[in-house]
Every structure is written in C-alpha cells, then in structure tokens.
C-alpha cells in the first residue's frame, strides 16, 4: 500500500513536505495533527512541528492555581529503552531537542492534548510493529 504518513526509519522521517501543509495556529496553543502524525508547539510565535515518532513520553501536572504544565520528552540516542535504530548512528553528532515543558492557562486543553498524543503514539507504534513483524 502507500506509505503516506507512515513512520519510516528516523533518517527519512518527514511530518510535512511543504510549509503550507502546517495547519494555521489556533490561539498559539499546542496542537496535535493526526493526519500528519505530528505535534505542533508554539515557540516564539511560530508553530513548530515534531513528528510523533520523535516523542518518547508526555505528562502533565496541575498546580494549585488554575494553571498547569505539560512536559514532552523526545527520543534521544543512548537513552535506555530507546529502540536501537541503525539509522540513528548517522546522526551521532547532532544535537537533539530532548525535552520541553509548557505552562498552560487551560488545564482541559492540556489533558486533551496529553490524551491525543498518547493515543497517536500508540497507534503509530502498533502499526509500525505490525509492519516489522510482517517484514520478518
């Protein structure tokens, strides 16, 4: 079948081919683009995409006042339990974005985002492992 949007080995991972494929920002908040399997983070007035395959985990935390935090941890080489992808070796000298945390004014939106990211991660991961199984 077609491999559109599929998580390829890291070397070929592409969330968007074109600048104009990125959805317009809504309120400058974190967005999950299920179609392109990416998350979009508001950083200095721009929406910055990260492919879901780069995301290792996501968590949120609510503090006493009505604000909350979201923490997104990305895959980096050498971390325990990172699937050893041979294509990663090509990027040994690269600098990785390892972790970001955001403060949010909207706890409901944050818990929604956490759920969406977890679901999308799971879907993509199970599809990829199925694909790997079929290949062997």
């Amino acid at each position: 079948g077609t491999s559109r949007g599929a998580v390829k080995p890291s070397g070929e991972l592409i969330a968007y081919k074109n600048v104009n494929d990125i959805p317009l920002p809504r309120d400058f908040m974190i967005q999950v683009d299920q179609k392109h399997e990416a998350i979009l983070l508001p950083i200095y007035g721009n929406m910055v995409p990260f492919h879901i395959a780069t995301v290792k985990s996501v968590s949120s935390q609510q503090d006493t006042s009505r604000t909350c935090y979201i923490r997104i941890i990305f895959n980096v080489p050498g971390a325990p339990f990172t699937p050893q992808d041979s294509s990663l070796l090509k990027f040994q000298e690269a600098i990785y974005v390892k972790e970001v945390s955001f403060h949010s004014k909207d706890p409901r939106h944050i818990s929604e985002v956490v759920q969406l990211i977890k679901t999308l991660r799971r879907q993509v991961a199970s599809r990829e492992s199925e694909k790997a199984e079929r290949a062997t």
Partner: protein
Amino acid sequence: MADGHLFNSISLGGRGGTNPGQLRVHSGGIVWKKQGGGKAVEVDKSDLIGLTWMKVPRSNQLGVRTRDGLYYKFTGFRDQDVSSLTTFFQTSCGIAPEEKQLSVSGKNWGEVDLNGNMLTFLVGSKQAFEISLADVAQTQLQGKNDVMLEFHVDDTTGANEKDSLMEISFHVPNSNTEFLGDENRP
C-alpha cells in the same frame, strides 16, 4: 505617499505569541505599531544590520536585526510583498535580505547556531525554531550531555498564547565538540 510601503496586517512575533499591527517601511527605516495603540517598534535605517525572509505557513516572515542586538520578526507578508520590499530595501537601505528556509519535517535532531542572543535550531540547514537567550532565566547542565534552558515566567507582555514555553533541554552528544565552551550563556 510615494515614500515607502504600508502593510496593514503584520504581526510582531515574540516569546508571548504574536501581536497584530501595522508596518510601514520607508526610506528612513521601519515602523511597526500595535493594533489599537500601545507598543511600537521603530528601527532607523542606520541601525539595520540584517534582514531575512522566510516562508512560513500561508505567509512570509521578515526578520529584522538591529545594531544593538535586537531581533524582530514580522509575519503577514504576501509573496508579492516580498519581491517589492526586497527591491525597496536594496535601493533605499543598501541591504539585500537573505533567504532562510523553515524546516517542517518534524525531526528533533539537528544543529544549534548561536548568533547574538538568538539560538537557532536547524534541521538539515533549515530553521526549525529560534529562541532568544535574553529570555532565559537559567541554564543548567544536566549530567554530561544535557543542557537545559529555563525561561522567565512572563505574564506581563500581553501574551496571547495559551501555552507558553517554560523549559527546553538539548542533548549534546560527546562526539559533538562544537559547543564544549558554549554550554553556558554567551
């Protein structure tokens, strides 16, 4: 008015998101005024040291670098504005804007470039994002390979974004020797 160009919906981007406003480019420099008054940005021609264009989703972004180390990002230009302004900047300011490209591949690995107080994360020589080190409250080295940047809590500047960046950390492998002396703020 023969002198210059007026653009009505140009937003100024920064740490807190973006603010809509009006931008005027004239032979003496660049003036941006926030919609409804308030903040204004004026850059005199003599203070301009660099201009960049970058295509962003459905728009174009003008980067303006000034002599005193400030850097402004204006978004909202149409493709035809880019060519007319490029000509204008060349003839009236003697500056040819450089073209930058935005990375949209979604990769989390690349290079870090430090220029003035801007930190740029580049993926395959295209820009993924920029952050201003002036907003960094603290840097920490975590373990041997991780550099964490913590941002000032900023609720003063009419921030219009719902989610704001608090911390970001970068993993710098041992084999990367470029930033050995650069881990702390320049």
